[in-house]
């Protein structure tokens, strides 16, 4: 398998898309560090991976702090002896109470930038010396289809994800001469805790969704905007990450791949 004997760190791997990525990488042979702040959910993912036969551990990580991602990388190297893949997946929709507002406030702009952009930068800065010295490494950053086109309402989230694509390109250029690939994946509509919040937010702030459950809001979005007519899954994103993080994609760098059933075509 592509990842036999390899080690990956996945940030935000306790739930949602990150969990799907961690499980897909593990299924393909990888040991996985579950870097998150939600210990209880993270431990469930660790147990699932261990039951599948590869190694995993929980690493308490706040991606907004450089010292914390530095510790994360150091702990991975101590525990596994090598680090082949970093997946910067941790992300937020806004400040913790963002679903109560019609438009993002300064806290939402700050939170989305801190986690969705600076969190990725911290992760990349923490691994780049190790990967450069080794002349090998794969970095995959999770952006969003929301980063492909500015839309009203959720402007802070979309802007942060556009920035996530941009920093992926910047580091792709920087690290390319050292044999390191940096790419982004842009997930479309995936039923996760984040989307549950978005559904909540829409039904409480937009009258066309009044009275709908978050899941109903989600399903309407799927039927309205996904050409393939179905939702995407964390496993879909995990499979795309696994491809980009494999040596089969050794000549692909600086790209952002939409996994979105055709919502946006790049």
């Amino acid at each position, binding site marked *: 398998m592509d990842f036999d004997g390899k080690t990956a760190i996945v940030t935000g791997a306790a739930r949602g898309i990150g969990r799907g990525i961690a499980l897909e990488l593990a299924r393909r042979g990888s040991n996985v560090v579950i870097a998150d702040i939600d210990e209880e959910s993270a431990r469930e993912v660790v147990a699932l991976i261990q039951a599948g036969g590869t190694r995993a551990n929980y690493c308490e990580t706040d991606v907004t702090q450089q010292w914390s991602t530095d510790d994360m990388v150091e702990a991975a190297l101590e525990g596994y002896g090598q680090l082949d893949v970093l997946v910067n997946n941790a992300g937020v929709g806004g400040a913790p109470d963002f679903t109560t507002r019609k438009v993002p406030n300064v806290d939402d702009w700050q939170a989305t930038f801190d986690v969705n952009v600076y969190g990725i930068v911290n992760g990349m800065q923490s691994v780049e010396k190790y990967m450069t010295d080794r002349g090998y490494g794969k970095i995959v950053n999770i952006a969003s289809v929301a980063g492909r086109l500015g839309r009203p309402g959720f402007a802070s989230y979309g802007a942060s994800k556009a920035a996530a694509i941009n920093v992926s390109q910047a580091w792709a250029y920087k690290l*390319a001469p050292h044999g390191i690939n940096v790419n982004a994946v842009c997930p479309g509509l995936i039923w996760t805790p984040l989307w549950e919040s978005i559904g909540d937010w829409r039904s409480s702030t937009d009258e066309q969704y009044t009275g709908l459950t978050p899941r109903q809001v989600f399903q309407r979005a799927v039927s309205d905007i996904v050409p393939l007519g179905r939702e995407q899954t964390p496993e879909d994103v995990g*499979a*795309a990450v*696994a491809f980009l993080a494999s040596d089969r994609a050794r*000549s*692909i*760098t*600086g790209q952002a791949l*939409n996994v979105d*059933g055709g919502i946006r075509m790049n």
Partner: protein
Amino acid sequence: MNLKGKVAVITGGATGIGRAIALKLADRGAAIMIADINDEAASATATEVEEISGRSATFLTDVTDVEACEALAVATSDTLGPADILVNNAGIAGSPGWQERSFSTEEDWKRTYQVNVIGMSNVTSAFRSQMTERRSGRIVNLASIAGREGRPAIPHYSASKAAVISLTQATALELARFNITVNAICPGLLWTPMWEQVGDRYALDNPAYEGMTARQVFDALVEERIPMKKEQTPEDIAYTVAFFVSDDAKNITGQALNVDGGFFMR
């Protein structure tokens, strides 16, 4: 062996990138129809395929001939079964002798558009019903990074490949409701017979490349323009095709993915 039992058609599958795609999909278990205008080379590649997956066929196909494309679809269905996968790879860089001319002629424009764009549409139309009737299919179109931005010296080729990206998006939207995905790959710099022509053309009137052999022009461009400082290989492209036609990419459609070492990041 994730393509066992599948039937894949590859236009221009006899040589170069097409041959590499044929061998890779055969390696994953697919039966392969090699559709090419060069029958002798097609037979040689078919023999190689048979040693890998056991099932192959060839069909003499000029993609600019609608009847030939329809006959190819019938022949595929009769000999191997209805097509699950179509790889539109056949392409040309200009009309014969184009690389010895300083300006693209009307014939270069017409011929390139006929083969690269209309030919692709002809083949796709011929296989359409085999896929729509079974509500399943995967189409991969070979575009080029030349289609990402207008390039001097090869404007006719560049424009035709931009049209391929556009055709890919249109076809993806049209066929999405039949559970058929359509994606494009934009190869970067690959040392193929086509690039030999391109190198000759660049050396013709660009002072920067004066007196250089085609291979020297190619090497200079790899060094100047590719962040990873490496040329791409037919195998790189084949791996990406294998990803797009696998279950892993079932929710990816309408995308154009650069396999170019970071030459273009959009």
